[in-house]
């Protein structure tokens, strides 16, 4: 099925969705008219970003979550500027997998990554990413592109001179302009892909040692450090449009693992009435503020089954845009249920955002189960 998918028009789309970021008015969602042809390459041209596509419903810019099955359920993909919250399954087996798919997709499409974890070193997380499945057609295409790029670099086009103005496809070890890839979980991602990618790591035990000079504002120390780190990267690398001379716009993919767990210094998982029970929700609000004003998308995994206070779970859900819950069958009585024998767990789409729209497309089927095979993570209706 993957081989037959048409390659989406990467850098040459005539799509109506481009992103405009000027000094005073930075937004991620803006609709532009169809590009008029033949403008000179001298004036600032807004080229669409690799690995993204506009939503067919409202022109929103989308990125793939790394799981084409999940993309479909979310209405085409994850909207740029929003948060995808994964409610972890009980033994934290499948949620790290979704986390890794998201990051691997970022590497394959050339996005910048920001990985934050309190448990594992981000460098180790990146080593364990699954290998992308690039079918042979795509590989041949990439090889041809690399050859052509070298030979044709200086040939002036006489007839198709308008194409001269368009930027050439960048030659990379893997250059894929498709939206959504499949991964082989049993293999590790090739080392050269990781080295070719740009990533930033936030490992909490390393960052927490320095003391905080500013006045505390009831936010957990670790969360403050993480927010400052994210804001710093966004500002320095111009994801919020603050560096207008940057020619090639790119997406920042942020991944935060096990947020709200005791490893981050938060105590909502072991007591019901904790002192700083708004620490996590305040963090999510500030994160939303940062995301809405930059070209980034974020995935967070939260162990909601550990949170004692149900009110906090409701608030966390309200402050996230897309919420997906995983329920694995391991160790539960559903494991022996004949209805579920082909599947590994249930997946609940709890919330889909309504952005730039009055309604959102809620999928008709509510009972969805997932199945993990070596090369495929399928989500199917069941029951």
């Amino acid at each position, binding site marked *: 099925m993957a081989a037959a998918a048409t390659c989406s028009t990467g850098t040459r789309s005539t799509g109506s969705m481009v992103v405009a970021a000027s000094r005073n008015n930075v*937004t*991620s*969602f*803006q*609709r532009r008219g169809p590009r008029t042809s033949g403008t000179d390459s001298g004036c600032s041209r807004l080229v669409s970003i690799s690995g993204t596509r506009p939503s067919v419903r*409202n022109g929103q810019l989308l990125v793939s979550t790394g799981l084409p099955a999940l993309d479909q359920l979310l209405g085409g993909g994850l909207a740029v*500027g929003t948060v995808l919250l994964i409610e972890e399954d009980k033994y934290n087996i499948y949620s790290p997998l979704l986390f890794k798919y998201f990051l691997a997709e970022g590497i394959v499409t050339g996005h910048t990554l920001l990985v934050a974890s309190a448990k594992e070193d981000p460098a180790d997380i990146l080593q364990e990413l699954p290998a992308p499945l690039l079918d042979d057609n795509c590989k041949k295409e990439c090889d041809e592109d690399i050859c052509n790029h070298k030979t044709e670099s200086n040939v002036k086009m006489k007839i198709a001179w308008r194409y001269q103005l368009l930027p050439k496809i960048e030659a990379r070890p893997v250059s894929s302009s498709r939206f959504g890839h499949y991964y082989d979980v049993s293999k590790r991602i090739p080392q050269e892909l990781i080295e070719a990618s740009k990533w930033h790591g936030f490992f909490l035990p390393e960052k927490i040692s320095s003391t905080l000079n*500013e*006045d*505390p*504002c*009831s936010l957990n120390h670790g969360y403050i450090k993480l*927010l*400052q780190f994210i*804001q710093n990267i966004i500002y320095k690398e111009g994801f919020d449009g603050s560096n207008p001379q940057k020619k090639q716009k790119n997406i920042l993919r942020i991944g935060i693992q096990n947020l709200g767990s005791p490893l981050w210094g938060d105590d909502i998982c072991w007591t019901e009435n904790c002192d700083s029970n*708004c620490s996590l*929700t*305040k963090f*999510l*609000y*500030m994160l*939303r*503020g*940062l995301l*809405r*004003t930059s070209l980034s998308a974020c995935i967070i995994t939260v162990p909601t089954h550990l949170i004692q206070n*149900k*009110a906090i*779970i*409701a*608030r966390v859900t*309200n*402050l996230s845009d897309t919420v997906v819950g995983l329920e694995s069958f391991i160790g539960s009585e559903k494991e022996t249920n004949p209805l579920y024998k082909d599947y590994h767990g249930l997946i609940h789409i709890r919330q889909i955002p*309504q*952005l*730039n*729209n*009055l*309604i*959102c497309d809620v999928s008709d089927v509510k009972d969805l189960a997932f199945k993990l095979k070596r090369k495929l993570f399928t989500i199917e209706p069941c029951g």
Partner: protein
Amino acid sequence: MFPELNNLLNTTPDQVEQGKLTLLCDAKTDGSFLVHHFLSFYLKANCKVCFVALIQSFSHYNIVGQKLGVSLTTARECGQLVFLEGLKSAVDVFFRPQEEPHPLQFLREANSGNLQPLYEFVQEALKPMDSGEAAWRCPVLLVDDLSVLLSLGVGAVAVLDFVHYCRATVCREWKGNVVALVHDSGDAEDEENDILLNGLGHQSHLILRAEGLATGFCKDVHGQPKGSS
């Protein structure tokens, strides 16, 4: 704005009731369409609107507003709309300490939160102009939404105080309207939210509730105070 909703409420942009507090409530669904309705309704009714938008960006409301027939950018430029973009201001106040008091100053405070700077912002935005001849019909305060203030560490009592102050100034003194959205957490046992919802339900003139599927809603009309109060 939705004509059906206008018919049910017996209002049109030409005849706007004044001095009312309307509570919008949603349970298990998204009630933001009510916010969009009231925003476009009051802008079409030529009222001066102060919109405290804490949960989404300006462009989101602008794009939906265009679908409903109002342009927020134009309204903001000509002074009809004062828009507080909560998300952007929060990033400003959190990462770059401000000298003068900022409406979202409570984000930097450790305990319980004081919404007075926010009230002063609203007061400044909606106060009638001294020039005598009023350009706009009546001031309107729109808040989307109040539940998020609880998530940001402000106590339910502080939020109720804020709404009370706004009601006293905007509704009674300046004969304007206040519309606020609160989420109903249902069985999530959010005590603070329940306090807020019950307190506001008691104070408001009209409660619009969106429940379950997006197509259905029911309304409760609280008694209308006449003269006193």
